[in-house]
């Protein structure tokens, strides 16, 4: 009932009530646009660890349909052959052999130096945590995976992520049930690496498009296409060097012809991954 100033009471329908409410909360288009723009800028300049929660919440809420869609996508992709990568099993063995060769090289160095250091063998002391891939953003401005893995397993930023016996990236964010993996091809990724048997450390930075770049390496070093690129050991995160990619192209740097411009490609098909393994060194009991 609506009570008017002259004392009359009139019945009111819900539709009329709705129209009245709309008139009361009417906002001009200009104001609406300003509010939304303001909200956008707040989101843009808010700390990333806060805004990441939205992306994690989306991945958690729609984990099941996203996984189904991704499986269908992977299934269809298995019919398409990609140049450079033969089949997954073969590349897995090749990477395994590459890792063994690297270990053999390390052993030889040990013998040459006649040290009696304790032998470190692969990932013997590490916890290997398998995790399913929820979403993958590859090929755009960023190369990242969101994986389903609980924080209680001991996940932390900076831990290396392995698949098909090769390093594919590092953990960049950890949430309660999910974690974000920054692939080494992401432009924000920087990983210390070594090429073949050269005993020189260089930083490899992602360049998108399923590749990464190594710069600041003098042309006096003999680099060949196909040379293995190994992620350097990092105390607390990786106790042994592991293969991360191979040299795809090696040309003179356009700005400085005394340096190499090296492009590195992954040794496994990152786009087809549906599960990965997180390496946790020195696991807590």
């Amino acid at each position, binding site marked *: 009932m609506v009570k008017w100033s002259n004392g009359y009471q009139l019945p009111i329908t819900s539709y009329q009530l709705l129209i009245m409410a709309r008139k009361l909360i009417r906002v001009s*288009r200009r104001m*609406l*646009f300003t509010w*939304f*723009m303001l*909200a*956008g*800028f*707040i*989101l*843009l*300049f*808010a700390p*990333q660890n806060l*805004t*990441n929660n*939205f*992306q994690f*919440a*989306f991945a958690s809420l*729609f984990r099941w*349909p*996203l*996984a*189904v*869609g*991704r499986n*269908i*996508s992977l299934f*269809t*992709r298995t019919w398409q052959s990609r140049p450079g990568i033969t089949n997954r099993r073969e590349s897995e063995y090749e990477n395994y052999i590459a890792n063994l060769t690297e270990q053999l090289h390390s052993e030889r160095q040990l013998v040459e130096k006649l040290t009696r250091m304790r032998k470190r063998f692969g990932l013997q002391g590490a916890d290997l945590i398998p995790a399913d891939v929820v*979403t993958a*953003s*590859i*090929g*755009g*401005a*960023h190369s*990242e995976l969101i994986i389903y893995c609980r924080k209680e397993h001991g996940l932390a930023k900076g831990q290396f992520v392995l698949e098909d016996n090769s390093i594919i990236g590092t953990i960049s964010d950890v949430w309660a049930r999910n974690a974000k993996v920054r692939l080494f091809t992401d*432009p*924000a990724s920087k990983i210390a690496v070594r090429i073949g048997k050269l005993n020189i450390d260089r930083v490899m930075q992602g*360049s*998108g*498009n*399923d590749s990464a770049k190594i710069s600041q390496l003098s042309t006096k070093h003999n680099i060949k296409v196909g040379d293995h690129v190994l992620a350097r050991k990092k105390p607390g995160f990786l106790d042994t060097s592991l293969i991360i990619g191979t040299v795809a192209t090696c040309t003179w740097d356009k700005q400085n012809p005394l340096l190499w411009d090296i492009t590195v490609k992954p040794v496994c098909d990152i*786009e087809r991954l549906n599960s990965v393994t997180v390496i946790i060194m020195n696991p807590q009991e």
Partner: protein
Amino acid sequence: MRWLRFAVFILIVTVLQASLLDIVAVTKLNIRPNLLLTLLVFFAIYCNTTDAIITSFAIGFVADISIASAMGSQTISFGLFGTALAYLHRVIAIRKMPYQSLAIFITGSLIGALAHLLALLKGQAAISNIYTVILGTALYSAIVGPFLFLPAAWWMRIKTHRFSRH
């Protein structure tokens, strides 16, 4: 505007965009059509201006949470250019499919470029050939986009043959 239908529709499209669309990706750059961009243009053309502003920002926000990007960059870009397109539609009719394709291509290119610049402003690194990816995505969306207008109109119960400028 049927907002519940809109919310369900956007969520379904976002999940499809984030998971299933890899099937139709082309080239080594993994270029896929942007369904959210197509919907942005659809709502800007077939809704009144106020609804178009709300839908533009809402689509931008879901693009932000589903695509690995600097949060907020897509919201601002989609909102800005969706609103501009809605106002433009009051002056220039975008009824025929070639015009709709052109609208998708131009809007997609501008949105991609602005989102990239905003991401740079936030300090995020970008790939070397980002503009190829942006133009490729806009072109791919422009080719397939107008064909998706009909199912979108059916779901949203919008009559596409009735022409009006709000």
